[in-house]
Protein backbone atom coordinates (compact mmCIF):
# COMPACT_ATOMS: atom_id res chain seq x y z
CA UNK A 1 0.00 0.00 0.00
CA UNK A 2 2.80 2.34 0.88
CA UNK A 3 4.32 1.81 -2.54
CA UNK A 4 1.30 3.45 -4.14
CA UNK A 5 2.01 6.61 -2.21
CA UNK A 6 5.57 6.95 -3.46
CA UNK A 7 4.72 9.33 -6.24
CA UNK A 8 2.62 11.51 -4.00
CA UNK A 9 5.34 11.66 -1.36
CA UNK A 10 8.00 12.46 -3.96
CA UNK A 11 5.86 15.29 -5.32
CA UNK A 12 5.32 16.53 -1.81
CA UNK A 13 9.02 16.56 -1.03
CA UNK A 14 9.70 18.46 -4.23
CA UNK A 15 7.04 21.07 -3.72
CA UNK A 16 8.46 22.53 -0.53
CA UNK A 17 10.96 25.35 -0.41
CA UNK A 18 14.25 24.91 1.36
CA UNK A 19 13.99 26.42 4.88
CA UNK A 20 15.99 29.55 5.53
CA UNK A 21 18.13 27.91 8.21
CA UNK A 22 19.13 25.18 5.73
CA UNK A 23 20.33 27.85 3.30
CA UNK A 24 22.35 29.25 6.17
CA UNK A 25 23.81 25.82 6.95
CA UNK A 26 24.70 25.42 3.26
CA UNK A 27 26.41 28.78 3.17
CA UNK A 28 28.36 28.04 6.34
CA UNK A 29 29.41 24.55 5.27
CA UNK A 30 30.42 25.84 1.89
CA UNK A 31 32.39 28.77 3.32
CA UNK A 32 34.09 26.54 5.88
CA UNK A 33 35.00 24.10 3.15
CA UNK A 34 36.59 26.89 1.14
CA UNK A 35 38.55 28.01 4.16
CA UNK A 36 39.83 24.49 4.81
CA UNK A 37 40.69 24.19 1.15
CA UNK A 38 42.57 27.47 1.36
CA UNK A 39 44.63 26.17 4.25
CA UNK A 40 45.41 22.77 2.76
CA UNK A 41 46.07 24.04 -0.71
CA UNK A 42 48.28 26.81 0.58
CA UNK A 43 51.32 24.58 0.42
CA UNK A 44 50.49 23.43 -3.11
CA UNK A 45 49.92 26.94 -4.25
CA UNK A 46 53.13 28.07 -2.69
CA UNK A 47 55.14 26.07 -5.17
CA UNK A 48 53.08 27.24 -8.09
CA UNK A 49 53.48 30.81 -6.98
CA UNK A 50 57.18 30.26 -6.83
CA UNK A 51 56.90 29.43 -10.49
CA UNK A 52 54.74 32.39 -11.30
CA UNK A 53 55.88 35.28 -9.25
CA UNK A 54 59.33 36.41 -8.28
CA UNK A 55 57.69 38.35 -5.47
CA UNK A 56 56.63 35.15 -3.85
CA UNK A 57 59.81 33.36 -4.82
CA UNK A 58 61.51 35.92 -2.73
CA UNK A 59 58.85 35.72 -0.14
CA UNK A 60 59.73 32.10 0.39
CA UNK A 61 63.37 32.90 0.41
CA UNK A 62 62.81 35.74 2.80
CA UNK A 63 60.58 33.63 4.97
CA UNK A 64 63.16 30.92 5.15
CA UNK A 65 65.83 33.40 6.05
CA UNK A 66 63.74 35.30 8.50
CA UNK A 67 62.69 31.94 9.85
CA UNK A 68 65.96 31.81 11.63
CA UNK A 69 65.45 35.10 13.34
CA UNK A 70 65.28 34.52 17.04
CA UNK A 71 66.39 36.57 19.95
CA UNK A 72 70.01 37.29 20.44
CA UNK A 73 72.06 39.88 22.13
CA UNK A 74 73.64 41.75 19.27
CA UNK A 75 76.06 43.51 21.45
CA UNK A 76 78.71 40.95 22.02
CA UNK A 77 81.84 40.19 20.16
CA UNK A 78 81.91 36.74 18.65
CA UNK A 79 84.69 34.17 18.55
CA UNK A 80 85.79 35.58 15.21
CA UNK A 81 86.46 38.97 16.74
CA UNK A 82 83.68 40.57 14.70
CA UNK A 83 80.67 42.16 16.35
CA UNK A 84 77.58 41.68 14.26
CA UNK A 85 76.30 45.00 15.55
CA UNK A 86 79.16 46.57 13.62
CA UNK A 87 78.13 44.66 10.52
CA UNK A 88 74.60 45.92 10.89
CA UNK A 89 75.83 49.47 11.37
CA UNK A 90 77.96 49.13 8.27
CA UNK A 91 75.07 47.82 6.21
CA UNK A 92 72.95 50.76 7.31
CA UNK A 93 75.39 53.10 5.56
CA UNK A 94 75.21 51.27 2.25
CA UNK A 95 73.16 53.04 -0.39
CA UNK A 96 72.99 50.35 -3.03
CA UNK A 97 73.97 46.73 -3.51
CA UNK A 98 74.10 44.23 -6.33
CA UNK A 99 73.97 40.54 -5.55
CA UNK A 100 73.13 37.18 -6.98
CA UNK A 101 70.81 34.59 -5.58
CA UNK A 102 70.47 30.93 -6.38
CA UNK A 103 67.76 28.71 -5.05
CA UNK A 104 67.08 25.02 -5.53
CA UNK A 105 64.84 22.38 -4.13
CA UNK A 106 64.22 18.66 -4.17
CA UNK A 107 61.97 17.52 -7.01
CA UNK A 108 58.43 16.49 -6.22
CA UNK A 109 57.58 13.45 -8.33
CA UNK A 110 53.92 14.46 -8.37
CA UNK A 111 54.53 17.77 -10.05
CA UNK A 112 56.17 18.11 -13.44
CA UNK A 113 57.43 21.59 -12.74
CA UNK A 114 58.84 20.95 -9.32
CA UNK A 115 62.39 20.14 -10.29
CA UNK A 116 63.24 23.77 -10.41
CA UNK A 117 65.90 26.17 -9.49
CA UNK A 118 66.04 29.92 -9.46
CA UNK A 119 68.78 32.35 -10.32
CA UNK A 120 68.58 36.04 -9.96
CA UNK A 121 70.68 39.15 -10.22
CA UNK A 122 69.39 42.08 -8.24
CA UNK A 123 70.17 45.73 -7.78
CA UNK A 124 68.76 47.33 -4.68
CA UNK A 125 68.94 51.04 -4.02
CA UNK A 126 67.67 52.77 -0.93
CA UNK A 127 66.92 55.77 -3.12
CA UNK A 128 65.21 54.23 -6.12
CA UNK A 129 63.99 50.76 -5.23
CA UNK A 130 64.76 47.31 -6.55
CA UNK A 131 65.35 45.82 -9.95
CA UNK A 132 65.80 42.10 -10.52
CA UNK A 133 66.44 39.74 -13.36
CA UNK A 134 64.95 36.36 -12.50
CA UNK A 135 65.47 33.05 -14.18
CA UNK A 136 63.30 30.15 -13.12
CA UNK A 137 64.90 26.91 -14.22
CA UNK A 138 62.49 24.18 -15.24
CA UNK A 139 62.97 20.85 -16.91
CA UNK A 140 61.00 22.34 -19.81
CA UNK A 141 63.09 25.49 -20.15
CA UNK A 142 63.56 28.81 -18.41
CA UNK A 143 61.04 31.41 -17.40
CA UNK A 144 62.91 34.69 -17.34
CA UNK A 145 61.39 37.84 -15.93
CA UNK A 146 62.49 41.34 -15.11
CA UNK A 147 61.04 42.96 -12.04
CA UNK A 148 60.89 46.54 -10.76
CA UNK A 149 59.75 47.43 -7.27
CA UNK A 150 59.68 51.21 -7.04
CA UNK A 151 58.22 52.23 -3.68
CA UNK A 152 58.67 55.96 -4.21
CA UNK A 153 56.76 55.79 -7.47
CA UNK A 154 54.44 53.20 -5.89
CA UNK A 155 54.77 50.98 -8.92
CA UNK A 156 55.47 47.31 -9.31
CA UNK A 157 56.32 45.98 -12.76
CA UNK A 158 57.05 42.48 -13.93
CA UNK A 159 57.93 41.69 -17.54
CA UNK A 160 58.29 38.31 -19.18
CA UNK A 161 61.56 38.07 -21.06
CA UNK A 162 61.49 34.38 -21.96
CA UNK A 163 58.89 31.65 -21.57
CA UNK A 164 59.51 27.92 -21.28
CA UNK A 165 58.50 25.54 -24.01
CA UNK A 166 54.92 26.35 -25.01
CA UNK A 167 53.86 22.80 -25.69
CA UNK A 168 54.68 21.76 -22.15
CA UNK A 169 53.68 24.94 -20.39
CA UNK A 170 50.30 25.48 -22.00
CA UNK A 171 48.82 27.95 -19.59
CA UNK A 172 51.53 30.51 -20.30
CA UNK A 173 51.63 31.08 -24.00
CA UNK A 174 51.60 34.85 -24.15
CA UNK A 175 54.20 37.28 -22.89
CA UNK A 176 52.88 39.38 -20.05
CA UNK A 177 53.57 42.83 -18.70
CA UNK A 178 52.36 43.22 -15.15
CA UNK A 179 52.01 46.73 -13.83
CA UNK A 180 50.58 47.51 -10.45
CA UNK A 181 50.07 50.90 -8.88
CA UNK A 182 50.88 50.11 -5.27
CA UNK A 183 48.49 51.34 -2.62
CA UNK A 184 49.79 52.01 0.88
CA UNK A 185 47.85 48.98 1.99
CA UNK A 186 49.52 46.87 -0.72
CA UNK A 187 52.89 47.85 0.65
CA UNK A 188 51.73 47.06 4.17
CA UNK A 189 50.37 43.69 3.14
CA UNK A 190 53.49 42.83 1.21
CA UNK A 191 55.56 43.64 4.26
CA UNK A 192 53.19 41.77 6.55
CA UNK A 193 53.49 38.63 4.47
CA UNK A 194 57.27 38.77 4.54
CA UNK A 195 57.53 39.75 0.92
CA UNK A 196 60.69 41.64 1.59
CA UNK A 197 63.58 40.61 -0.54
CA UNK A 198 66.27 43.20 -0.33
CA UNK A 199 69.40 42.16 1.48
CA UNK A 200 69.16 45.14 3.81
CA UNK A 201 65.96 43.79 5.27
CA UNK A 202 67.06 40.19 5.13
CA UNK A 203 70.40 40.76 6.74
CA UNK A 204 68.89 42.84 9.48
CA UNK A 205 66.71 39.85 10.23
CA UNK A 206 69.61 37.46 10.18
CA UNK A 207 71.75 39.64 12.36
CA UNK A 208 69.11 39.67 15.04
CA UNK A 209 69.30 35.90 15.35
CA UNK A 210 70.89 33.69 17.89
CA UNK A 211 74.01 32.33 16.32
CA UNK A 212 77.35 30.70 16.89
CA UNK A 213 80.66 31.77 15.49
CA UNK A 214 82.27 29.67 12.77
CA UNK A 215 85.57 31.45 13.15
CA UNK A 216 87.51 32.73 10.20
CA UNK A 217 87.80 31.33 6.71
CA UNK A 218 88.52 32.41 3.14
CA UNK A 219 86.03 32.79 0.31
CA UNK A 220 87.26 33.80 -3.14
CA UNK A 221 90.46 35.05 -1.58
CA UNK A 222 88.64 37.22 0.95
CA UNK A 223 89.15 36.64 4.65
CA UNK A 224 85.78 36.19 6.21
CA UNK A 225 84.20 35.57 9.60
CA UNK A 226 81.38 33.05 9.69
CA UNK A 227 78.23 32.84 11.78
CA UNK A 228 75.78 30.02 12.00
CA UNK A 229 72.22 29.57 13.15
CA UNK A 230 70.39 26.25 13.39
CA UNK A 231 67.56 27.13 15.71
CA UNK A 232 64.39 25.52 14.32
CA UNK A 233 62.02 27.53 16.50
CA UNK A 234 60.53 30.02 14.17
CA UNK A 235 57.42 31.69 13.02
CA UNK A 236 57.24 31.80 9.27
CA UNK A 237 54.11 33.29 7.76
CA UNK A 238 54.53 31.71 4.35
CA UNK A 239 55.27 28.25 5.63
CA UNK A 240 53.42 28.27 8.88
CA UNK A 241 51.86 24.85 8.30
CA UNK A 242 55.21 23.24 7.81
CA UNK A 243 56.40 20.76 10.40
CA UNK A 244 59.75 19.33 11.52
CA UNK A 245 61.60 22.33 10.24
CA UNK A 246 65.34 22.09 10.37
CA UNK A 247 67.50 24.89 9.15
CA UNK A 248 71.18 25.56 8.83
CA UNK A 249 72.10 29.16 8.06
CA UNK A 250 75.58 30.48 7.56
CA UNK A 251 76.62 34.02 6.83
CA UNK A 252 80.14 35.04 5.95
CA UNK A 253 81.33 38.61 6.52
CA UNK A 254 84.42 40.28 5.10
CA UNK A 255 86.57 41.03 8.13
CA UNK A 256 87.94 44.18 6.53
CA UNK A 257 84.80 45.82 5.18
CA UNK A 258 82.41 44.23 7.70
CA UNK A 259 80.04 43.54 4.82
CA UNK A 260 78.51 40.14 4.00
CA UNK A 261 80.16 38.11 1.26
CA UNK A 262 77.91 35.08 1.16
CA UNK A 263 74.84 33.67 2.81
CA UNK A 264 73.85 29.97 2.73
CA UNK A 265 70.56 28.61 3.95
CA UNK A 266 69.73 24.91 3.91
CA UNK A 267 66.22 24.08 5.02
CA UNK A 268 64.32 20.85 5.44
CA UNK A 269 60.67 20.61 6.38
CA UNK A 270 57.63 18.37 6.13
CA UNK A 271 54.65 19.72 4.25
CA UNK A 272 51.43 18.16 5.49
CA UNK A 273 48.63 18.00 2.94
CA UNK A 274 45.64 16.23 4.38
CA UNK A 275 46.89 12.79 5.32
CA UNK A 276 50.00 13.09 3.20
CA UNK A 277 53.30 14.22 4.53
CA UNK A 278 56.08 15.19 2.19
CA UNK A 279 59.59 16.24 3.03
CA UNK A 280 61.08 19.17 1.16
CA UNK A 281 64.63 20.35 1.22
CA UNK A 282 65.82 23.51 -0.38
CA UNK A 283 68.93 25.57 -0.48
CA UNK A 284 69.31 29.27 -0.96
CA UNK A 285 72.57 31.10 -1.53
CA UNK A 286 73.10 34.84 -1.79
CA UNK A 287 76.50 35.61 -3.20
CA UNK A 288 78.61 37.94 -5.33
CA UNK A 289 77.60 40.95 -3.29
CA UNK A 290 78.76 44.31 -4.61
CA UNK A 291 78.13 46.75 -1.81
CA UNK A 292 77.87 50.49 -2.31
CA UNK A 293 77.76 50.35 -6.09
CA UNK A 294 76.93 53.56 -7.88
CA UNK A 295 73.52 53.58 -9.48
CA UNK A 296 71.93 55.64 -12.18
CA UNK A 297 68.32 56.72 -11.85
CA UNK A 298 67.80 55.65 -15.46
CA UNK A 299 68.32 52.04 -14.42
CA UNK A 300 65.12 52.24 -12.45
CA UNK A 301 63.01 53.76 -15.20
CA UNK A 302 60.41 51.15 -16.04
CA UNK A 303 60.44 50.27 -19.72
CA UNK A 304 57.38 50.78 -21.91
CA UNK A 305 55.09 47.89 -22.70
CA UNK A 306 56.63 45.91 -25.57
CA UNK A 307 54.48 45.24 -28.63
CA UNK A 308 52.32 42.15 -28.42
CA UNK A 309 52.48 41.84 -24.65
CA UNK A 310 49.39 41.08 -22.61
CA UNK A 311 48.86 43.49 -19.74
CA UNK A 312 48.11 41.59 -16.56
CA UNK A 313 47.41 42.29 -12.92
CA UNK A 314 49.98 40.91 -10.57
CA UNK A 315 47.83 41.08 -7.46
CA UNK A 316 44.53 39.86 -8.83
CA UNK A 317 43.03 38.89 -5.53
CA UNK A 318 44.49 41.21 -2.97
CA UNK A 319 41.72 41.78 -0.47
CA UNK A 320 42.14 44.69 1.89
CA UNK A 321 40.14 47.52 3.39
CA UNK A 322 40.31 49.60 0.23
CA UNK A 323 39.13 46.78 -2.00
CA UNK A 324 36.37 46.00 0.54
CA UNK A 325 35.19 49.61 0.33
CA UNK A 326 35.26 49.34 -3.46
CA UNK A 327 33.11 46.22 -3.10
CA UNK A 328 30.61 48.07 -0.91
CA UNK A 329 30.46 50.91 -3.44
CA UNK A 330 29.84 48.42 -6.20
CA UNK A 331 27.09 46.79 -4.13
CA UNK A 332 25.30 50.14 -3.92
CA UNK A 333 25.61 50.62 -7.67
CA UNK A 334 24.45 47.14 -8.53
CA UNK A 335 22.01 46.33 -5.75
CA UNK A 336 20.81 49.83 -4.91
CA UNK A 337 22.02 49.48 -1.35
CA UNK A 338 24.53 47.64 0.77
CA UNK A 339 24.02 43.88 0.61
CA UNK A 340 22.07 42.50 3.55
CA UNK A 341 24.63 39.76 3.97
CA UNK A 342 28.17 39.33 2.73
CA UNK A 343 28.05 35.93 1.08
CA UNK A 344 28.99 35.19 -2.50
CA UNK A 345 25.83 33.32 -3.37
CA UNK A 346 23.74 36.15 -1.92
CA UNK A 347 25.67 38.76 -3.90
CA UNK A 348 25.31 36.82 -7.14
CA UNK A 349 21.60 36.28 -6.77
CA UNK A 350 21.14 39.89 -5.65
CA UNK A 351 22.65 41.17 -8.88
CA UNK A 352 20.51 38.82 -10.94
CA UNK A 353 17.35 40.17 -9.31
CA UNK A 354 18.44 43.81 -9.25
CA UNK A 355 17.09 46.38 -11.67
CA UNK A 356 19.48 49.24 -10.95
CA UNK A 357 20.94 50.84 -14.11
CA UNK A 358 24.35 49.30 -13.37
CA UNK A 359 22.88 45.83 -12.87
CA UNK A 360 20.77 46.11 -16.03
CA UNK A 361 23.83 47.27 -17.95
CA UNK A 362 25.88 44.35 -16.67
CA UNK A 363 23.16 41.83 -17.45
CA UNK A 364 22.85 43.28 -20.94
CA UNK A 365 26.59 42.82 -21.45
CA UNK A 366 26.34 39.21 -20.33
CA UNK A 367 23.55 38.41 -22.76
CA UNK A 368 24.52 36.37 -25.75
CA UNK A 369 27.77 35.11 -24.28
CA UNK A 370 28.33 31.39 -24.01
CA UNK A 371 28.10 30.05 -20.47
CA UNK A 372 31.80 29.90 -19.72
CA UNK A 373 32.50 33.38 -21.13
CA UNK A 374 29.51 34.73 -19.27
CA UNK A 375 30.78 33.33 -15.99
CA UNK A 376 34.25 34.69 -16.62
CA UNK A 377 32.89 38.14 -17.44
CA UNK A 378 30.65 38.08 -14.41
CA UNK A 379 33.57 37.10 -12.21
CA UNK A 380 35.64 39.96 -13.62
CA UNK A 381 32.83 42.49 -13.42
CA UNK A 382 31.99 41.60 -9.84
CA UNK A 383 35.57 41.43 -8.63
CA UNK A 384 35.14 44.25 -6.08
CA UNK A 385 32.24 42.40 -4.48
CA UNK A 386 34.21 39.15 -4.52
CA UNK A 387 37.08 40.88 -2.78
CA UNK A 388 34.66 42.34 -0.24
CA UNK A 389 33.56 38.79 0.54
CA UNK A 390 37.16 37.61 0.67
CA UNK A 391 38.17 40.45 2.96
CA UNK A 392 35.24 39.91 5.32
CA UNK A 393 35.97 36.22 5.58
CA UNK A 394 39.74 36.60 5.67
CA UNK A 395 41.69 39.61 6.91
CA UNK A 396 38.65 41.17 8.62
CA UNK A 397 37.24 38.00 10.11
CA UNK A 398 38.46 38.59 13.65
CA UNK A 399 35.40 39.57 15.73
CA UNK A 400 33.76 40.78 12.56
CA UNK A 401 30.22 42.08 12.24
CA UNK A 402 28.30 43.51 9.34
CA UNK A 403 25.10 45.57 9.47
CA UNK A 404 24.14 45.96 5.81
CA UNK A 405 20.61 44.94 6.62
CA UNK A 406 19.92 48.17 8.48
CA UNK A 407 22.66 50.63 7.52
CA UNK A 408 22.44 52.59 4.27
CA UNK A 409 24.85 54.99 2.53
CA UNK A 410 22.99 57.87 4.18
CA UNK A 411 23.86 56.61 7.65
CA UNK A 412 27.20 58.39 7.80
CA UNK A 413 27.84 57.72 11.49
CA UNK A 414 26.48 54.22 11.77
CA UNK A 415 28.65 51.12 11.88
CA UNK A 416 28.38 49.23 8.62
CA UNK A 417 31.18 46.76 9.18
CA UNK A 418 33.73 46.24 11.90
CA UNK A 419 36.51 43.90 12.90
CA UNK A 420 39.01 43.70 15.70
CA UNK A 421 42.54 44.92 15.01
CA UNK A 422 43.92 44.65 18.55
CA UNK A 423 42.74 44.23 22.12
CA UNK A 424 42.23 47.95 22.37
CA UNK A 425 40.94 48.80 18.91
CA UNK A 426 38.37 47.90 16.33
CA UNK A 427 38.38 49.07 12.75
CA UNK A 428 35.02 50.38 11.60
CA UNK A 429 33.71 51.15 8.13
CA UNK A 430 30.81 53.54 8.52
CA UNK A 431 27.70 53.95 6.38
CA UNK A 432 29.32 56.68 4.30
CA UNK A 433 32.31 54.35 3.81
CA UNK A 434 34.86 56.29 5.79
CA UNK A 435 36.88 54.10 8.12
CA UNK A 436 38.22 54.74 11.61
CA UNK A 437 39.78 52.91 14.50
CA UNK A 438 37.65 53.01 17.64
CA UNK A 439 37.98 51.68 21.17
CA UNK A 440 35.82 48.73 22.27
CA UNK A 441 33.85 51.14 24.49
CA UNK A 442 33.17 53.50 21.60
CA UNK A 443 32.16 50.57 19.43
CA UNK A 444 29.70 49.42 22.07
CA UNK A 445 28.13 52.89 22.01
CA UNK A 446 27.97 52.93 18.23
CA UNK A 447 26.42 49.50 18.07
CA UNK A 448 23.93 50.32 20.80
CA UNK A 449 22.81 53.24 18.62
CA UNK A 450 22.02 50.77 15.83
CA UNK A 451 19.40 49.18 18.04
CA UNK A 452 17.55 52.44 18.61
Amino acid at each position, binding site marked *: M*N*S*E*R*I*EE*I*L*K*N*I*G*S*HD*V*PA*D*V*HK*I*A*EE*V*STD*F*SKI*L*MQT*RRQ*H*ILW*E*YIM*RSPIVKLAVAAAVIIACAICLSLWRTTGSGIALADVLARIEKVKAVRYKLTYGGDPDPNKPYSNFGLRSTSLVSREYGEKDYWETLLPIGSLIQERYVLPQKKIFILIDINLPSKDRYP*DRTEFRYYRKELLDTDVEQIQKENIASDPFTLLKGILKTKYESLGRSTIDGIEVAGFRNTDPNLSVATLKNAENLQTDNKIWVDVKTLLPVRYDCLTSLDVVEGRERRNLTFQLVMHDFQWDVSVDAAEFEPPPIPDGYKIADVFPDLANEETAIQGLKQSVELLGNYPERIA*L*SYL*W*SGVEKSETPAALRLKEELKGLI*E*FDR*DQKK*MDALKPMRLLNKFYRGPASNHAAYYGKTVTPKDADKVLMRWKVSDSEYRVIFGDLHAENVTPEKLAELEAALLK
Partner: protein
Amino acid sequence: MKLYRQAEIFEQVRAKYVGLLTSVLWKLTGDRELFTEAMQYALLGIWQHLGKLNGKKAHVYIYRIALSANSKAWRNRVGRDGELSRNCAGFEKSPDDELDRNELAMLIRREICRLPDKQAKAIVMRYLEQQDYQAIAGKLSCTEASARSHVSKALATLKSRLATLT
Protein backbone atom coordinates in the same frame (compact mmCIF):
# COMPACT_ATOMS: atom_id res chain seq x y z
CA MET B 1 45.22 22.20 -14.22
CA LYS B 2 47.28 24.48 -12.03
CA LEU B 3 46.10 24.52 -8.47
CA TYR B 4 45.68 28.25 -8.08
CA ARG B 5 43.52 28.20 -11.21
CA GLN B 6 41.69 25.16 -9.86
CA ALA B 7 40.97 27.08 -6.68
CA GLU B 8 39.56 30.01 -8.64
CA ILE B 9 37.34 27.73 -10.70
CA PHE B 10 36.19 25.97 -7.56
CA GLU B 11 35.03 29.28 -6.11
CA GLN B 12 33.15 30.08 -9.32
CA VAL B 13 31.51 26.68 -9.45
CA ARG B 14 30.68 26.79 -5.77
CA ALA B 15 29.06 30.19 -6.10
CA LYS B 16 27.14 29.09 -9.16
CA TYR B 17 25.80 25.78 -7.92
CA VAL B 18 25.46 26.14 -4.17
CA GLY B 19 21.77 27.00 -4.59
CA LEU B 20 21.03 23.97 -6.74
CA LEU B 21 23.04 21.70 -4.47
CA THR B 22 21.24 23.02 -1.41
CA SER B 23 17.86 22.38 -2.97
CA VAL B 24 18.67 18.91 -4.26
CA LEU B 25 20.51 17.78 -1.16
CA TRP B 26 17.89 19.09 1.21
CA LYS B 27 15.15 17.30 -0.66
CA LEU B 28 17.23 14.15 -0.81
CA THR B 29 18.12 14.20 2.86
CA GLY B 30 15.30 16.03 4.61
CA ASP B 31 17.43 16.10 7.70
CA ARG B 32 19.78 18.84 8.76
CA GLU B 33 22.54 16.59 10.00
CA LEU B 34 22.46 14.42 6.89
CA PHE B 35 22.25 17.51 4.76
CA THR B 36 25.37 19.01 6.33
CA GLU B 37 27.26 15.79 5.79
CA ALA B 38 26.06 15.43 2.21
CA MET B 39 26.92 19.05 1.47
CA GLN B 40 30.49 18.43 2.60
CA TYR B 41 30.77 15.36 0.38
CA ALA B 42 29.29 17.33 -2.52
CA LEU B 43 31.80 20.15 -2.15
CA LEU B 44 34.59 17.61 -2.05
CA GLY B 45 33.11 16.03 -5.18
CA ILE B 46 33.12 19.38 -6.92
CA TRP B 47 36.75 19.92 -5.98
CA GLN B 48 37.71 16.48 -7.25
CA HIS B 49 35.82 16.77 -10.53
CA LEU B 50 36.35 20.40 -11.41
CA GLY B 51 37.61 19.48 -14.85
CA LYS B 52 34.15 18.25 -15.78
CA LEU B 53 32.32 21.26 -14.44
CA ASN B 54 33.28 23.83 -17.03
CA GLY B 55 31.54 22.29 -20.01
CA LYS B 56 28.01 21.96 -21.27
CA LYS B 57 27.33 18.94 -19.10
CA ALA B 58 28.25 20.69 -15.88
CA HIS B 59 24.68 20.67 -14.64
CA VAL B 60 24.31 16.93 -14.98
CA TYR B 61 27.62 16.34 -13.19
CA ILE B 62 26.33 18.41 -10.32
CA TYR B 63 23.38 16.05 -10.03
CA ARG B 64 25.74 13.09 -10.08
CA ILE B 65 27.87 14.69 -7.39
CA ALA B 66 24.78 15.46 -5.30
CA LEU B 67 23.48 11.91 -5.60
CA SER B 68 26.84 10.44 -4.76
CA ALA B 69 27.22 12.79 -1.78
CA ASN B 70 23.75 11.91 -0.58
CA SER B 71 24.52 8.24 -0.91
CA LYS B 72 27.70 8.58 1.17
CA ALA B 73 25.91 10.56 3.83
CA TRP B 74 23.19 7.91 4.04
CA ARG B 75 25.74 5.13 4.23
CA ASN B 76 27.42 6.87 7.14
CA ARG B 77 24.09 7.36 8.86
CA VAL B 78 22.92 3.79 8.58
CA GLY B 79 26.39 2.53 9.35
CA ARG B 80 26.61 4.67 12.44
CA ASP B 81 23.44 3.93 14.35
CA GLY B 82 21.49 1.63 12.10
CA GLU B 83 18.40 3.81 12.31
CA LEU B 84 16.89 6.48 10.16
CA SER B 85 16.43 9.94 11.53
CA ARG B 86 12.89 10.89 12.36
CA ASN B 87 13.71 14.57 12.07
CA CYS B 88 12.16 14.73 8.63
CA ALA B 89 11.18 17.79 6.73
CA GLY B 90 9.79 18.69 3.38
CA PHE B 91 6.11 17.79 3.43
CA GLU B 92 2.91 18.52 5.29
CA LYS B 93 2.18 16.32 8.22
CA SER B 94 -1.18 15.13 9.43
CA PRO B 95 -1.59 13.83 12.96
CA ASP B 96 -2.75 10.36 12.03
CA ASP B 97 -0.15 9.42 9.48
CA GLU B 98 2.80 11.61 10.45
CA LEU B 99 5.10 8.79 11.48
CA ASP B 100 4.28 6.60 8.48
CA ARG B 101 4.73 9.37 6.00
CA ASN B 102 7.94 10.54 7.60
CA GLU B 103 9.36 7.07 7.67
CA LEU B 104 8.27 6.37 4.14
CA ALA B 105 9.73 9.64 2.89
CA MET B 106 13.04 8.81 4.48
CA LEU B 107 12.98 5.32 3.02
CA ILE B 108 12.30 6.76 -0.42
CA ARG B 109 15.14 9.22 -0.03
CA ARG B 110 17.49 6.47 1.02
CA GLU B 111 16.42 4.21 -1.82
CA ILE B 112 16.96 6.97 -4.40
CA CYS B 113 20.65 6.72 -3.49
CA ARG B 114 20.66 3.12 -4.60
CA LEU B 115 19.02 3.65 -7.99
CA PRO B 116 21.05 3.37 -11.19
CA ASP B 117 22.69 6.68 -12.09
CA LYS B 118 20.33 7.88 -14.83
CA GLN B 119 17.21 6.76 -13.00
CA ALA B 120 18.34 8.56 -9.85
CA LYS B 121 19.06 11.76 -11.76
CA ALA B 122 15.81 11.55 -13.67
CA ILE B 123 13.65 11.07 -10.60
CA VAL B 124 15.42 13.85 -8.71
CA MET B 125 14.97 16.23 -11.61
CA ARG B 126 11.35 15.21 -12.21
CA TYR B 127 10.00 15.08 -8.68
CA LEU B 128 12.37 16.82 -6.35
CA GLU B 129 13.29 19.61 -8.75
CA GLN B 130 9.95 19.50 -10.60
CA GLN B 131 11.44 19.88 -14.05
CA ASP B 132 9.57 18.94 -17.21
CA TYR B 133 10.65 16.03 -19.36
CA GLN B 134 12.07 18.28 -22.05
CA ALA B 135 14.47 19.84 -19.54
CA ILE B 136 15.37 16.45 -18.11
CA ALA B 137 16.05 15.07 -21.57
CA GLY B 138 18.27 18.04 -22.34
CA LYS B 139 20.32 17.55 -19.20
CA LEU B 140 20.61 13.80 -19.58
CA SER B 141 21.37 14.14 -23.31
CA CYS B 142 18.58 11.76 -24.28
CA THR B 143 15.14 11.93 -25.87
CA GLU B 144 12.06 12.89 -23.92
CA ALA B 145 10.82 9.32 -24.28
CA SER B 146 14.02 8.05 -22.68
CA ALA B 147 13.67 10.57 -19.89
CA ARG B 148 10.12 9.34 -19.23
CA SER B 149 11.41 5.81 -19.32
CA HIS B 150 14.14 6.55 -16.75
CA VAL B 151 11.58 8.14 -14.45
CA SER B 152 9.08 5.33 -14.73
CA LYS B 153 11.78 2.69 -14.27
CA ALA B 154 12.95 4.55 -11.19
CA LEU B 155 9.43 4.62 -9.79
CA ALA B 156 9.01 0.94 -10.49
CA THR B 157 12.32 0.14 -8.80
CA LEU B 158 11.38 2.23 -5.79
CA LYS B 159 7.98 0.61 -5.54
CA SER B 160 9.46 -2.83 -5.78
CA ARG B 161 12.10 -2.15 -3.14
CA LEU B 162 9.73 -0.42 -0.78
CA ALA B 163 7.22 -3.21 -1.11
CA THR B 164 9.76 -5.52 0.42
CA LEU B 165 10.69 -3.06 3.13
CA THR B 166 7.26 -1.92 4.32
